[in-house]
């Protein structure tokens, strides 16, 4: 019955926070790998978090996930090599053209493929580690809600843009987050009109998002805007037809309004938190609020549990659960508190579906790759690169060309970063993560969200 990470619902949620795919710039390999790493880590963490239950053996699943993780690592390495080969060949062809016109043919051969240079490999690995670790740290740094939030990051590079001859390019990054169970009200009696509606159980969650944003701004990113979405789940007990069966398959406009209020309140909190750190939020886009209704299977389970705790009407069970904080005028349906097992199931089915999602969009300008016209120039290679060149007197150092295109105006650093956008990062700390990872996979229930326009 459980559905910890349903694929179906992720799709519907992505629609609320993501840019349509055809509008996205293509992502670079590192960003895709880093994004996958975050997803993989989230899955592993969730698996680790599953408690040991006597009589239940999930060792097989653990092994299976390890195997898949290994498979993915091998895939990443293969793609990395393919890309390195691609760039080596691309650069090789370009440099050959240059050299053909100016340098004797025997100069071609000593060129060392950058991917084979230990320093290059180490530096690449270091950059990738830093990107992955920065993103993972951000992903893990947000302990939202009792039920735990899911965090995802999307990074979209500018590799797809046609390189301009001069000027700057733009690197886009999107930080997205789905916050589960942060809401103070288990049941906002007056729904959208309730003063508690939309309040956070853990207000620091907004602060963490602001901190992440501040870090990115310090790295040169500019905040473009935020997209906020929210959903509610079975918090009204009366349906639109005023029958006391809302949540159990019936819809209620109040739930939509409540989700809408969550968006509004959270948007305000986010704006304030960012302003407190000196960051202006230019725009906030609110997506349509969503009401998640229970599936038939979940309704059946609730009926059984209601019967088990002695409630003749199943909606009373959700009512009892929703009224955990028991307003003064609320009389409990039963004299005894709900059994922990039942509360646990309802937490999963109801509380975890009450959430706010936020996607921050940022960009920063990066210098574009500028092809240099063929020319012959002596370049002093760094010692690590020189050490890899063949010890052959027929290759005088004055004829050595570095593995990458000569860029006289940018020769201050060895150019050892593989992917094209990275090559444009001249002038900034090469060890600094240049882009983030993607991701936007939120985890939650498998219910079909019902969208209703406000």
């Amino acid at each position, binding site marked *: *019955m*459980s*559905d*910890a*990470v*349903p*694929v179906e619902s992720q799709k519907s949620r992505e629609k609320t926070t993501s840019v349509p795919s055809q509008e996205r710039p*293509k*992502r*670079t*390999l590192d960003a*895709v*790998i880093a994004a*996958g790493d975050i997803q*993989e880590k989230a*899955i592993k963490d*969730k*698996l680790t978090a*599953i*408690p040991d*239950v006597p*009589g*239940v*053996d*999930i060792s097989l*699943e*653990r092994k*299976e*996930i390890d195997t*898949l*993780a290994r*498979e*993915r690592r091998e*895939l*990443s390495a293969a*793609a990395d090599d*393919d*890309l390195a*080969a*691609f*760039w080596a*060949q691309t650069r090789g062809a370009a440099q050959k053209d240059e050299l053909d016109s100016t340098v004797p043919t025997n100069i071609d051969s000593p060129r060392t493929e950058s991917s084979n240079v230990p320093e290059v490999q180490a530096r690449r690995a270091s950059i990738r580690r830093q990107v992955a670790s920065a993103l993972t740290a951000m992903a893990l740094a947000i302990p939202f809600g009792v039920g735990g939030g899911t965090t995802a990051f999307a990074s979209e590079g500018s*590799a*797809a843009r046609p390189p301009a001859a001069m000027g700057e390019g733009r690197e886009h990054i999107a930080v997205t987050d789905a916050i589960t169970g942060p809401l103070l009200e288990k049941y906002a009696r007056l729904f959208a009109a309730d003063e508690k509606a939309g309040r956070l159980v853990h207000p620091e969650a907004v602060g963490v998002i602001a901190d992440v944003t501040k870090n990115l701004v310090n790295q040169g990113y500019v905040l473009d805007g935020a997209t906020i979405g929210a959903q509610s789940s079975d918090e009204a007990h009366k349906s639109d037809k005023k029958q006391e069966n809302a949540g159990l398959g019936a819809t209620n406009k109040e739930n939509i309004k409540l989700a809408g209020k969550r968006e509004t309140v959270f948007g305000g909190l986010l704006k304030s938190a960012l302003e407190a750190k000196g960051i202006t939020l230019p725009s906030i886009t609110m997506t349509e609020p969503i009401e998640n209704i229970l599936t038939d299977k979940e309704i059946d*389970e609730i009926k*059984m*549990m209601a*019967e*088990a*705790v*002695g409630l003749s009407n199943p909606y009373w069970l959700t009512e009892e659960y929703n009224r955990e904080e028991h307003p003064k005028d609320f009389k409990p349906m039963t004299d005894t508190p709900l*059994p922990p*097992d*039942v509360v*646990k*199931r309802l937490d*999963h089915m109801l509380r975890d579906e009450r959430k706010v999602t936020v996607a921050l969009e940022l960009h920063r300008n990066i210098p574009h790759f500028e092809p240099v016209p063929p020319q012959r120039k002596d370049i002093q290679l760094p010692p690590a690169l020189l050490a890899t060149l063949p010890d052959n007197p027929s290759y005088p150092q004055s004829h050595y060309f570095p593995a990458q295109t000569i860029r006289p105006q940018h020769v201050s650093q060895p150019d050892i970063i593989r*992917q*094209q956008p990275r090559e444009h990062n001249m002038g900034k700390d090469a060890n600094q993560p240049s882009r983030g990872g993607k991701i936007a*996979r939120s985890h939650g229930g498998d219910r079909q969200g019902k969208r209703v326009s406000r």
Partner: protein
Amino acid sequence: MKTQEQIVKEYEEKSETILRKMMHVLIRAQRKVDDEAYRKVLEKVEKGDIV
């Protein structure tokens, strides 16, 4: 020779497939545990521990 775009696209597709498989395995593990918890609730009901 594959282009950068092709390499990234192919990798992304394969990686997502693997991640999806991992998710399914995770769901299966979680279900095992949840089913057991649910079975215990029913057991208690049958025994009359929960009325």
